[in-house]
Structures are given as C-alpha cells and as structure tokens.
C-alpha cells in the first residue's frame, strides 16, 4: 500500500496492520526516515518536502510492484509525508513482510534506495542563513545503482 500525507503516522499501528491475523509472515523489515537537526547546510530549523502529486503515487506504486516481482513478499507499505517538518519528525516509513527474513530485509533496503532516487520529492532546508533546495547526493544514486539489473 502507498500513502502520501501531510500528517504524521503511527509506526506501531502501521506495522501491526501488516501482520495482524496472518501466520504466513516470518519476517517484517521496516525503515523510518527522520528529519535531522544537523545537515550539510548547518543547523536546520525546518524542512519542507515538495512532491509532484499524481506522479509520486505512480512512481511509488511502480517501485513497490518491482519489489514484489523481485522478492516473494506478503505485503509492502510505503507512507511518505510532504509539507513542512521540524527536526526529529518522521518523513517516511517503508515496510516489507515476507515468509523469509532475507526477502523482507533486502526488499526494504531496495525500496528506500529506489525511493530516494526515483520518487519526485524535493527538500527545501531552512537554516538561520535562509532557505535552500537540497542538491541530489551521488551516494544515493550509487545505493540505487546496486539494484539495477545488467
């Protein structure tokens, strides 16, 4: 399931929903991304996450479908926030459930790596010096590159 929202999410409730009533899931992997106070730009006062409504949902659904093709997944969840966020706030939750732990762990890593480089989100960082759009990171591209098939 894919969800885009302004509001915060309840990690425990989201994860519990993935496994509730099921006995075929052996492993549930998850990743939560949060706003850090210290960035390369300095001390952050806030961050605004802009996205491309419509295309974002489409890309996230495609990335989730790709994960489901590569690994035997019982379920997949991506919840991504947009709007203005303060340091310490949650940005994104990625969770994958599978009968096998390696499938859950690898697909979770795949989803977050691809999401970082494929989903149309842009970060505007606010510091005492003003606001600045974050430049794409080469390390994020490299992390996503690992998953590309030859």
């Amino acid at each position, binding site marked *: 399931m894919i969800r885009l929202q302004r509001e915060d999410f309840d990690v425990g409730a989201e994860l519990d929903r993935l496994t509730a009533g099921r006995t075929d899931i052996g492993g549930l992997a998850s990743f939560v991304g949060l706003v850090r106070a210290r960035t390369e730009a300095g001390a952050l006062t806030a961050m605004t*996450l802009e*996205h491309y409504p419509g295309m974002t949902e489409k890309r996230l659904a495609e990335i989730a479908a790709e994960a489901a093709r590569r690994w035997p997944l019982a379920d997949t969840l991506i919840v*991504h926030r947009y709007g203005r966020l303060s340091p310490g706030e949650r940005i994104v939750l990625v969770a994958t459930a599978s009968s096998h732990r390696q499938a859950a762990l690898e697909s979770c890593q795949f989803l977050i790596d691809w999401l970082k480089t494929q989903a*149309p989100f*842009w970060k505007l960082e606010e510091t005492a010096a003003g606001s600045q759009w974050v430049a794409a*990171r080469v390390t*994020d591209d490299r992390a996503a590159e690992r998953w590309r098939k030859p």
Partner: protein
Amino acid sequence: MKLLYFAWLRSKLGKAGEELNPPADVATVAQLLDWLETVSPAHKAALADRRAVRVAVNQDYAAPDHPVRPGDEIALFPPVTGG
C-alpha cells in the same frame, strides 16, 4: 500543453505551472526546452544549466529525445532528493 515546475525551477520562474502552445516543429523534450528558453528571460535563466533539469512527460521520466505532443503534461524539476 500543460507545463509544471517544481522546487527551485518553480521558485526561479515564480509559478507552479502554465499553459503554453509551442510551435508545431517542437516535437521532442530537447526541442521544447530550447523553445522554452525563448519565452522569457526568466525561462532562459531557469534552464541555463540543462544538466540540472529533469523532465517528466505525462508523469514518466523522459529523455531529451522523448516526443512531446499538444495535450501532454510536461513537468520540469531538479534531480529528486526525497526519502
């Protein structure tokens, strides 16, 4: 043709999008960007560093040689920085 701008492209152009009608010989993404530079000094400035501009046609990432048509939704934005 519906143009959408995101992140600093939106800031530099001072708008989130606009409806434009390029001439009939504008048939690809690259040709559209060339033509957009002629629309106004702000467009020219925003597109100065072409390597920093990504394009989506109808919500799919598109290479410079991707075709563009009158009814398309064309989005211009910098490389993504989400997650």
